[in-house]
């Protein structure tokens, strides 16, 4: 059994993003997905700080401090892209106009609750950014994360113990071990890495799992 690395997970998510989709890739690991989108598919990347049609990082020396993404890194704008203000940008998100957003997570519950903004540590400074808007706004919310914490606990849980980002908002989970749909009937495994069995996956996941029909 061979776990996927972050790039491999990103590549796997990229396969599921169809041409013409309006997509927001969350800060952190999900931004890697952009590198794996097929060049022959036109996909519209949204950045919550006010652009649609985001292109790759600029060549060194071509950075513009006024053309950045939500992670505050320099980016470019594709031909046909455009700029808008924060009100319009979050209307796109909250209004259900994005087809897909991909977020990282601390935990996802069996019913699709998402926890990805706050560890709950008493001394942590709370900071949420646009995570809660993305979680509830996009038509489909994908989570991309390791299946387990570094200490081996399942990040898919019966009930989130970290503070929630959104309730019942996750549609699909991509981990280093499996692709799992969140359905009204429960979690359904679409794929596992080579050599992994459903029983093995069940053994390390803290929740009931069935194969998708």
């Amino acid at each position, binding site marked *: 059994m061979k776990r996927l690395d972050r790039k491999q997970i990103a590549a796997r998510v990229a396969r599921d993003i169809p041409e013409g989709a309006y997509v927001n890739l969350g800060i952190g690991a999900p931004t890697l997905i952009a590198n794996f989108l097929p060049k022959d598919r036109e996909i519209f990347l949204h950045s919550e700080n006010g652009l649609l049609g985001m292109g790759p990082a600029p060549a060194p020396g071509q*950075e513009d401090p*006024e053309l950045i993404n939500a992670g505050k890194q320099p980016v470019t704008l594709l031909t046909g892209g455009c700029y808008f*203000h*924060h*009100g319009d940008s*979050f209307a796109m998100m*909250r209004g259900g106009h994005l087809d897909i957003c991909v977020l990282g997570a601390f935990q996802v519950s069996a019913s699709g609750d998402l926890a990805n903004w706050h560890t709950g540590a008493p*001394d942590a400074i709370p900071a949420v950014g646009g995570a*809660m808007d993305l979680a509830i706004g996009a038509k489909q919310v994908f989570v991309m994360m390791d299946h387990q914490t570094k200490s081996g606990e399942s990040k898919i849980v019966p009930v989130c113990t970290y503070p929630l980002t959104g309730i019942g908002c996750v549609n699909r989970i991509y981990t280093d071990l499996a692709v799992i749909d969140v359905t009204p009937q429960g979690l359904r495994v679409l794929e596992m890495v080579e050599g992994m069995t459903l029983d093995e996956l069940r053994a390390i996941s803290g929740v009931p799992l069935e194969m998708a029909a």
Partner: protein
Amino acid sequence: MINKIVSSLAAAVADVHDGATVMIGGFGTAGMPSELIDALIEQGARDLTIVNNNAGNGDTGLAALLKARRVRKIICSFPRQADSYVFDGLYRAGEIELEVVPQGNLACRIEAAGAGLGAIFTPTGYGTLLAEGKETREINGRHYVLEMPIHADFALIKAHKGDRWGNLVYRKTARNFGPIMARAAACTIAQVSEVVELGELDPEVVITPGIFVKRVVPLGGSTPTATA
């Protein structure tokens, strides 16, 4: 003749009073009106409530205002950043009040103020810590949180070009909160890279009509020079 151009940064912020609520544009440093903030530090107003997406970066701009102990409370979505050490220190010392608002609720509460709405039901944050104690309602099968508008006494924003009637256009992603803050404040002050003659801005592309702007301060040469 109406001329909203103010040549001095000091004059532009002279009437910001102690205890004022001040919106400050920008997302990180893009669109942050650093020169106006420096003028505000110089001016000396204190006990301010600041509305911004972040809580300052490094030692300049908003961070410098915090460091000068002029801010009683900050309303923002994302205070914690790699270089937000000024805010972090004040917060941990209990010397600044923090209201964390999901970024889209921050945006639509500012928009609601500018548009004269009394309150809005937003789905963002429902069922989370950030909605605790707030009124909620189920509408057509979906859950919403009642959020109040955020008004301000002043907005300090950065635009690209402006004219003597206060019409503004922005540049790339430096636009961010500028247009919505301009509408939500009683007195909006814009620093611009360039003042243009009336009529030079195409009437189809004015992003902030002059009705929302009280003062325009030209800052020669502050446009980023990198190409893109």
